[in-house]
């Protein structure tokens, strides 16, 4: 075939043309073998620039195009579409990156930069000469989503997808949906009751005809790929037959065994058979065998005796369910940084030093004190309450380096609600910076200082210790340079937000990326904030990074809309730049199977050859490098192509 390649050199304003002599580049390449047309233009990505490409393809009968401009991550799609519009197969359009790889890094040497640009373009001309005309791979898709975690993020995402007409499997490891939001008292900056705004959504997910709610369940295994995941779910033994239980609560009432309530953050007790809280969804108890007298000694059995519908089943075992879904949203939420790590603040041993979530429960009308703030040591109403921000956050040497984003706001809310409770009391907030980046947040903070006389003191507290029934707070006011101390009745720690304890294990199972602190990583920090780099996985909520409720809800809806966009097509279309294998040449050594990180290669036992599953292959190239007989090749990146590209680059 005669090659008729078109070369289009972009100035990118002065980004490229300020360094590279683009005219000379275009002229030089016009002389290169196989080039039928070569030109330069100010902005190739503009409409006139794209038209230049389209017109030249038709006019000069081009068989391939090299757009010499920026990175293919930016405009490859633009020029592939332009090529396709002029009836040139889109995989015969390539980009030569002479901006990031050339002009931006060689500002000091225009001559060399120009020479380098010419070489970069020559390599891509050699590549495109041998590019096959390909079509995107179409893969059948299950139009059904899974959401892992049923806090506010998971609930919102599940509702949005279900309301768009797709079935959703919502999986929650706890006995009830709701997550941390169900524990909160009131929410900043409007002070609406957290449960009042959350419970309608909790009820909605449980009653939605398109949502299959699986509480007290965990993800056990995930296989498959985007559009076609197979998920094995462990339904933990609740020792309660959930098909029969009518939620009457008699078993809970009569159960004699008690333990610390997780929902009340240890500030109250629950029974061994329990629902976490009154509005739990589903309203069916689970039996915690670690604290059950029957499981401990074989005696008791009270719950079974009193149950009017015979729902208690001590023989129940964990069950496994298999679900097929096309996309998975991970919304596994956060935990607080362990208080035990903060030795200078008592490490959890000072009773009247509480965590922020404990204080939420003390403020909550449904909490252990009925919404009256009482200190844990003696139940007295505290008169001097100190709130500490950045406990474990913004501390790169000792704890977490990042800002947990919501602590300034919720501690301000705590101080305000405490003052609404106790008008004669005094609230102090120690801060490093008061961060209020949200609508109506700054006003909320100023209201706390002005109307509720919350005293903000700039400085990090050095230590807390007990003295005469008080918690002594030693700090400094860096604005005046004075050391200060407060004999507090109670201290509240704004502990750092960290990913949920189960997040790391889940990430490994799903093969999705995390940052060094265990927060799930988005595909692009600005432009793809709710997608994982692994296709088919989406992120929502604090599992991706600390954030407040409005942000979580917006992100969850964004993740849901990404899933809906995926489901808008009947089949999933993916890049055909994948590995292939010459079955006649394959020796069946199976080395490629061991190196493939995506489990994309199957072995044909009859023919004794390896075979690529195109739907799974990510085109990483690992198996091609590993193949000892060079029978494995990457489409449009064959050994021949690479050889010609390297030769072009090394030519004088």
């Amino acid at each position, binding site marked *: 075939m005669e090659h008729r390649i078109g070369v289009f050199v972009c100035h990118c304003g002065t980004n490229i043309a300020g360094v590279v002599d683009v005219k000379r580049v275009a002229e030089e390449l016009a002389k290169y073998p196989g080039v039928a047309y070569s030109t330069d233009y100010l902005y190739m990505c503009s409409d006139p620039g794209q038209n230049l490409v389209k017109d030249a393809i038709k006019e000069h009968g081009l068989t391939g195009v090299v757009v010499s401009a920026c990175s293919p991550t930016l405009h490859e799609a633009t020029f592939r579409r332009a090529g396709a519009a002029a009836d040139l197969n889109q995989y015969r359009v390539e980009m030569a990156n002479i901006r990031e790889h050339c002009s931006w890094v060689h500002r000091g040497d225009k001559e060399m930069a120009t020479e380098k640009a010419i070489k970069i373009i020559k390599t891509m001309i050699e590549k495109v000469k041998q590019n096959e005309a390909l079509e995107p791979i179409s893969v059948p898709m299950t139009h059904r989503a899974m959401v892992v975690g049923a806090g506010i993020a998971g609930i919102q995402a599940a509702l949005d997808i279900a309301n768009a007409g797709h079935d959703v499997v919502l999986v929650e490891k706890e006995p009830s949906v709701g997550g941390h939001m169900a524990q909160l008292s009131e929410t900043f900056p409007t002070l609406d009751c957290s449960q009042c705004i959350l419970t309608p959504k909790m009820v909605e997910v449980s009653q939605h005809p398109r949502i299959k709610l699986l509480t007290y369940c965990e993800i056990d295994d995930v296989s498959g790929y985007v559009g076609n995941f197979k998920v094995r779910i462990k339904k933990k033994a609740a020792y309660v037959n959930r098909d029969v239980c009518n939620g009457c609560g008699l078993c809970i009432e009569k159960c004699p065994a008690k333990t610390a309530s997780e929902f009340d953050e240890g500030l109250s007790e629950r029974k061994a058979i329990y629902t976490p809280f009154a509005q739990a969804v589903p309203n069916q108890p689970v039996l915690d065998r670690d604290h059950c007298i029957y499981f401990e000694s074989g005696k008791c059995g009270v719950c079974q005796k009193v149950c009017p519908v015979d729902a208690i089943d001590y023989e129940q075992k964990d069950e496994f369910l298999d679900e097929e879904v096309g996309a998975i949203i991970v919304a596994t939420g956060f935990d607080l940084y362990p208080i035990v790590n903060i030795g200078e603040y008592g490490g959890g041993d000072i009773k009247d030093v509480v965590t922020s979530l404990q204080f939420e429960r003390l403020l909550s009308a449904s909490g252990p004190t009925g919404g009256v703030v009482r200190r844990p040591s003696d139940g007295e109403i505290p008169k*001097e309450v100190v709130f500490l921000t950045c406990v474990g956050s913004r501390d790169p040497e000792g704890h977490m380096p990042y800002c947990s984003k919501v602590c300034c706001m919720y501690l301000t809310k705590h101080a305000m609600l405490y003052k609404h409770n106790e008008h004669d009391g*005094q609230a102090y907030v120690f801060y490093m910076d008061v961060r209020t980046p949200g609508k109506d947040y700054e006003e909320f903070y100023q209201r706390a*200082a002005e109307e509720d*006389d919350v005293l903000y003191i700039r400085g990090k507290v050095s230590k807390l210790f007990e003295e005469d029934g008080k918690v002594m707070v*030693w700090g400094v006011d860096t*604005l*005046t340079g004075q*050391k*200060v*101390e407060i004999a507090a009745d109670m201290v509240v720690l704004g502990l750092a937000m960290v990913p949920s304890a189960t997040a790391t294990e889940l990430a490994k199972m799903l093969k999705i990326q995390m940052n060094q602190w265990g927060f799930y990583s988005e595909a692009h920090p600005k432009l793809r904030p709710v997608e994982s780099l692994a296709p088919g996985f989406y992120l929502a909520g604090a599992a991706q990074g600390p954030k407040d409720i409005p942000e979580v809800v917006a992100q969850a809806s964004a993740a849901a809309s990404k899933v809906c966009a995926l489901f808008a097509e009947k089949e999933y279309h993916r890049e055909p730049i994948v590995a292939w294998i010459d079955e006649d040449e394959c020796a069946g050594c199976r080395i490629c199977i061991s190196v493939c990180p995506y489990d994309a290669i199957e072995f044909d036992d009859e023919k004794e050859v390896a075979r690529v599953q195109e739907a799974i292959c990510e085109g990483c190239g690992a198996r091609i490098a590993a193949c000892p007989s060079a029978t494995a090749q990457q489409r449009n990146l064959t050994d021949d192509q690479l050889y010609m590209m390297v030769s072009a680059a090394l030519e004088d």
Partner: protein
Amino acid sequence: MRLRLSTDSIRNASIERVEDLSGQALSSCYQCGRCSAGCPVVDEMDLIPNEVIRLLQFGQIKKVLRSKTIWICASCMQCSARCPKGVEFSSICDALRAMVLRMRLATPAVDAGNLSRVMVSKAPQMGVVSALRKLLNG
């Protein structure tokens, strides 16, 4: 020495008096320091304006009443014109001077009666008026 903060120490009667006399809410100040940054006589002050307010927020009235600052403030109002929270520092100084005089706590830093004729003739008229005004409690 650590400064002991408590409900009683930070909201004492003197602080309430300052707020009453000045008509200013001390808690409005969020310590941006713009008042001090633009004050034309700040170099002569022993406590800069935002520092005065900060000490009052902590209930430290004595330190403030002893300071030269409240007598040096020329009531030019530059600070209040620029304050993002609408706090009038000069009114706070008015109140603090009044308290010093009424409590007979100390000799004011400026004694108009002792100004020499030469001084009076050379000093800008506003300066003399201002000095007298300070003695007459604004």
